[in-house]
């Protein structure tokens, strides 16, 4: 049986810069989604978050402070170093130390290079996820897909889901005229993310589908560029690490509150009611239940009252 090939969704690369623009323009989702509602509880300190992508620039000034480790599963002559740019961008969005970019700026990040320097990968992707989990990561961001369904991979996803691991995947950038989002994103054993514009509507490129679990900011997102400096990119690839970082904060907040950690199936049900609805009312093919909402997640950190007796 031939090895399935998965690729980066087509990413829209914008300008790069040595210095960042104004805070609100950097990753507009930080303010618009009110990430501070969870950051007042935790900045991610104490949690390990994984990214499976094209490698990482571990010397970048906003990555180095939070870098936990990296490994290459592609056989690249560059090792785990990123020459593509996609992996460094996504990694800094999850847990870059600059809070204008990194959603969980106190987290420790691990990078499994499962996509080669050209942006495609095979079984090394699964090995990279396993490596992140072996390092202690409980949330893993995956901005790739589209290679067709694999039964053996599905079994791995299920075993990780049942072990309490939250895998976050990009839904794909094929736009509204495709029958469904990419696989693995539409697998029931993980979460699938759609991308939003700054006006909180579905990004034109974001794939429609029957199983979208939540939405995040995915247009004109600034993040780290290999070799230093910053770059702007658009794609469900950018929305996915945002959601992964945010859910990393939520998971850490649950740990700090001594509350049980839901598995990914329970988390999907929770996101179905604790997202904020946008566009077509209810769970729809554009943005799923809506956008991931730190405020509503934070209210879950309060224990339920005892039953009402009268």
């Amino acid at each position, binding site marked *: 049986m031939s090895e399935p090939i998965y690729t980066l969704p087509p990413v829209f690369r914008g300008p790069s810069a040595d210095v960042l623009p104004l805070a609100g323009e950097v990753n507009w989702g930080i303010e618009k989604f009110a990430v501070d509602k969870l950051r007042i509880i935790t900045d991610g300190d104490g949690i390990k978050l994984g990214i499976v992508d094209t490698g990482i620039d571990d010397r970048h000034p906003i990555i180095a402070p939070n870098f936990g480790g990296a490994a290459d599963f592609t056989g690249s002559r560059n090792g785990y170093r990123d020459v593509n740019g996609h992996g460094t961008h996504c990694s800094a969005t999850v847990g870059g130390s600059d809070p204008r970019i990194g959603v969980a700026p106190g987290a420790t990040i691990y990078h499994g290079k499962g996509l080669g320097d050209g942006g495609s990968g095979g079984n090394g992707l699964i090995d990279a996820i396993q490596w992140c989990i072996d390092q202690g990561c409980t949330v893993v961001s995956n901005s790739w897909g589209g290679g067709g369904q694999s039964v053996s991979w599905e079994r791995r996803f299920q075993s990780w889901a049942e072990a309490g691991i939250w895998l976050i995947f990009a839904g794909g950038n094929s736009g509204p005229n495709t029958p469904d989002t990419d696989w693995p994103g539409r697998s029931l054993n993980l979460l699938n993310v759609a991308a939003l514009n700054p006006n909180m509507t579905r990004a034109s490129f974001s794939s429609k589908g029957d199983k979208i679990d939540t939405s995040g900011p995915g247009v004109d997102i600034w993040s780290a560029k290999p070799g230093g400096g910053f770059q702007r990119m658009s794609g469900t690839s950018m929305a996915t690490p945002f959601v992964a970082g945010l859910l990393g904060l939520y998971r850490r907040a649950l740990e700090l509150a001594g509350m049980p950690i839901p598995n990914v199936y329970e988390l999907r049900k929770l996101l179905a009611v604790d997202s904020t*609805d946008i566009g077509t009312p209810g769970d729809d093919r554009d943005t799923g239940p809506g956008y991931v909402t730190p405020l509503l997640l934070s209210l879950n950190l309060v224990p339920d009252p005892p039953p009402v007796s009268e």
Partner: protein
Amino acid sequence: MRVVLALLLFASPAWAEPPALKLPAEVHGTSGAFVTVTAETAGKIVRWLPMDAGLSMIPSHLLRDTKTAVLMAPKGRYRLAAFTAAGDEPSEPAITVIVVDGAAPKPPDVTPTPVDPPPTEPTPPAPTGFYFLAVRPDGPAHPSFTAAMSLDAWGELRTKGHTIKDKTLTKARALGANIPAGTMLPCVIALRVEGNKSKQVGRPVDLPTTDSQVLALPEAIN
């Protein structure tokens, strides 16, 4: 230096005696405003125990300095106990009287009984405020609901000892909340937590959409 160190070491007792704790006999305040009480003690952590109903206290774990209690109460006289500890040994509790709006003194109907603190880290006192449950239709939240729940005033209510959470209608009813048919959603219901049960207070009210409406919730419920 070595001599000084040695002296200091020998000067330290091998066991820890609980430090003394002193409170003012009476503290006066007005209703609707915070009253603060400061304990004089060499102990590092002070635990506070309201002894009379009606005295709301900001949970001490939310305050940086546990030697000061921040309270609020309607007109009346209230007893408040405090103690500290060293190692496993709690101090003798001290008791002060909080007088709100100059309430006339009344003779105590019972002799104050000494509190019986646990020997080590006591749990913070149970919240004395309302448990406000914001109830919304099933499914994801409407943007207007998220906006209303984002108001800063909810945080202020929390500092006054209230608890805030949201539930969908189905989940609120599963808790036993009485939300009569015809109630406009989203709404807020108030619960009083008593042991392992909650008691619903008043009727559901509309979800506040301004800070001033949020702050008026405790009165609106009653």
